[in-house]
């Protein structure tokens, strides 16, 4: 009897197990009930991967204090807080397992968090399970995240974009992101995250830099969920979905493409009107826009690991006498006080982003520097939607600046000067524009340690700042006493540097480009029609001539064979 009952019980148990098995992986209810923490084996596998790939930045304790942290901006996530930016869950909630998997898989563009396409699905999932062990919040049943419903994007129309623009202004988006979305709102420079680290508002005109992805669905999700731990709030309660979609459409309309479309070549167009820098950007409308990527100057001492400028656009025109460049980039404020100079020294301490004093809410130097400390201490930092306390920013120690670099002499071979301020054998001509001054100034560079003033007065310029964008025009005669000549139909190496005074950039602490090229498109681009017709006609004439000659020869031969009277009997073939 006992054995009978036992076997019955075991059969029932087996059935129950099978039931649980069949429901387990597929049933969403079961997943939603308890915290999804993975198995010991999964967490153990995740730990092994974490110690190989992640610990360098996120630290052994998962607190974002790894080897690399001292040089990183945006700072690595502190997993112990349980706060994650990119989620599908409500503001303040934990992310779902899939959210963590997605962010590991896709990475965060234009930060030091890379995408991990090489790991298997299993490995990424194991990593996500291990990440959850750093915060006790994940184990609490009440905290199990319920993802929000995120529909696919409805059609975007001119009306929704118009409505979105209105809502964007009414809901205070422009206080951080700026009226034109360039990340230059009045509060932008004071923003700090929950841990007191400086943080920047997204530049909405450059969707390729969006941390959570560039698509309209991504923008809608960010607006719906907010970015936990940052000043970016959730608008899920404040705005109905239609209005969030309208703002999404407006944001998407701020950029022509979700790709940066970087160029390697600046093409200068011939201008029939004489160049007049005073006319501003209007003269450059016909010239193609080349966007060049800016990277941190991390090759020479005085390194800048994360320049705030990530790209510049360059346009160029020329006339019979001169060439002019229009350089534009986004900056959250114009720093027109203080000084700047490519020779200013940068102490090595400034290469390191110092850890913010815990809990004080004020960052201590580093990426943003002293002004940020003052700005961060303002009460407005806590609430980005409050009116800025002071309308006048404290004067900057260093001013914004930009420089165009060309070789001093036209390269006669592939050999160019070293792309960072030239070298001993091959020098560069630097058109340096301290934007606190009215005119650019020339330097000759023979390496970072050997830059000398060499102003010929040939380079003139005009700079203006409007709604988060610097527009700087440089003008120089095609042939000048310093620097290589610009010759129509020929290429010349070209490089740029940008300094943001607010981030204490000066000297070698800056963002720069590698060598690119400028090409002066000839005044008259020869049309292909003429040569095409000429070639066709010449070939036709030759072919007709050949055919005619063959026919004439045939006729001659035929006549001879028929015994027709040859005109010159003596000339007949032997």
């Amino acid at each position: 009897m006992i054995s009978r009952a036992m076997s019955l019980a075991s059969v029932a148990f087996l059935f129950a197990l099978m039931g649980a098995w069949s429901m387990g992986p597929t049933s969403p209810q079961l997943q939603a009930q308890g915290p999804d923490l993975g198995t010991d084996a999964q967490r153990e596998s995740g730990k092994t991967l974490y110690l190989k790939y992640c610990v360098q930045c996120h630290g052994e304790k998962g607190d974002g204090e790894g080897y690399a942290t001292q040089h990183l901006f945006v700072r690595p996530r502190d997993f112990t807080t349980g706060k994650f930016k990119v989620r599908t869950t409500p503001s303040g909630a934990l992310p779902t397992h899939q959210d963590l998997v997605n962010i590991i898989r896709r990475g965060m563009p234009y930060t030091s968090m890379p995408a991990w396409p090489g790991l298997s699905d299993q490995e990424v999932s194991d990593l996500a399970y291990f990440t959850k062990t750093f915060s006790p919040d994940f184990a609490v049943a009440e905290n199990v995240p319920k993802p929000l419903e995120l529909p696919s994007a409805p059609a975007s129309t001119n009306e929704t974009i118009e409505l979105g623009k209105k809502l964007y202004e009414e809901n205070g988006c422009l206080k951080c992101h700026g009226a034109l979305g360039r990340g230059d709102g009045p509060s932008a420079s004071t923003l700090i995250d929950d841990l007191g680290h400086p943080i920047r508002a997204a530049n909405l005109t450059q969707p390729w830099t969006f941390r959570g992805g560039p698509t309209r669905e991504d923008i809608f999700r960010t607006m719906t969920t907010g970015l936990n731990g940052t000043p970016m709030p959730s608008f899920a309660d404040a705005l109905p979905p239609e209005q969030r979609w309208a703002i999404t459409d407006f944001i998407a309309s701020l950029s022509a493409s979700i790709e940066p479309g970087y160029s390697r070549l600046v093409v200068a167009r011939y201008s029939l009107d004489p160049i007049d820098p005073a006319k501003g950007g209007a003269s450059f409308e016909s010239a193609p826009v080349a966007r060049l990527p800016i990277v941190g100057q991390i090759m020479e001492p005085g390194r800048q690991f994360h320049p705030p400028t990530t790209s510049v656009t360059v346009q160029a025109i020329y006339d019979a006498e001169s060439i002019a460049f229009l350089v534009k980039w986004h900056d959250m404020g114009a720093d027109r006080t203080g000084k700047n100079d490519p020779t200013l020294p940068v102490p090595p301490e400034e290469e390191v982003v110092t850890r913010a004093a815990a809990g004080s809410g004020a960052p201590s130097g580093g990426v943003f520097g002293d002004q940020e400390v003052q700005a961060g201490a303002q009460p407005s930092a806590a609430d980005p939607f409050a009116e800025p306390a002071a309308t006048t920013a404290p004067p900057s120690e260093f001013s914004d600046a930009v420089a165009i670099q060309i070789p001093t002499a036209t390269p006669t071979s592939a050999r160019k000067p070293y792309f960072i301020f030239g070298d001993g054998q091959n020098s560069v001509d630097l058109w340096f524009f301290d934007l606190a001054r009215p005119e650019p100034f020339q330097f000759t560079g023979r390496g970072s340690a050997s830059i000398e003033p060499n102003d010929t007065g040939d380079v003139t310029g005009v700079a203006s700042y409007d709604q988060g964008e610097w527009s700087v025009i440089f003008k120089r005669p095609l042939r000048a006493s310093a620097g290589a000549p610009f010759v129509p139909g020929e290429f010349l190496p070209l490089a740029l540097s940008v300094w943001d005074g607010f981030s204490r950039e000066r000297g070698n602490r800056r963002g720069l480009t590698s060598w690119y090229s400028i090409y002066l498109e000839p005044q008259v681009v020869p049309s292909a029609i003429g040569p095409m017709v000429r070639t066709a006609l010449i070939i036709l004439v030759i072919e007709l001539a050949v055919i005619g000659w063959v026919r004439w020869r045939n006729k001659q031969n035929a006549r001879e064979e028929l015994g027709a009277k040859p005109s010159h009997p003596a000339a007949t073939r032997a």
Partner: protein
Amino acid sequence: VNILVVLAVLVVFALLRFRRANLFAWAVAWWVGCYVFFRFGFTAPIPSSANVYVQMNVPLEPPFFPRTIHPASPPEITVHDKKIPIETGDSPFRGLETSNPQEFRKHLDNGRRVYYQNCVFCHGDNLGGNGMYVHGLDPIPTNFADGDTIANLQETFLFWRASKGGPGLPEEGGPWDSAMPAWEKFLTEDELWDVLLFLYDFTGERPRAVETHQ
């Protein structure tokens, strides 16, 4: 019509005529001549003007420099006043791998720290040459994880590349474009050797053996 080809064919025929060639030679000459004429000498008017159009509309490309990717190293370099032979030398810490694994591990950890504080921005978190600044660099940073690049190079060669960087390349390597810093400006000799140990350890590669001539 390629005039030169047609003329060449005609000249051959003329020569044959004056040499009074036999029938076989004539037959061969006709075959070859016809083939050469139609294959190389004949162009119809429309395709040839299309060719002119294509040639006049080649997309603008900046001048290209065919650089040598792993140029020959100098026989010896001087780093922090110390002479390091490249061809015959070896990493001073490589031997610890077998003689003192604990000490070796310390060097590896130090190399890891150096890598993630300095190299990661270009060479990437997984050493795949895909760091966050790759889009702005040309030439692109070396991929250490591709399975053969560093395995084909001696550790001393990498030491030369790391310590002298882009500016230390010979002309054929294009030293003016390379964004590889001369790391001797930032790192000690030991740190340089340590980071090389880390590269091989992380990717599971072995450095090319030192070739000894006995």
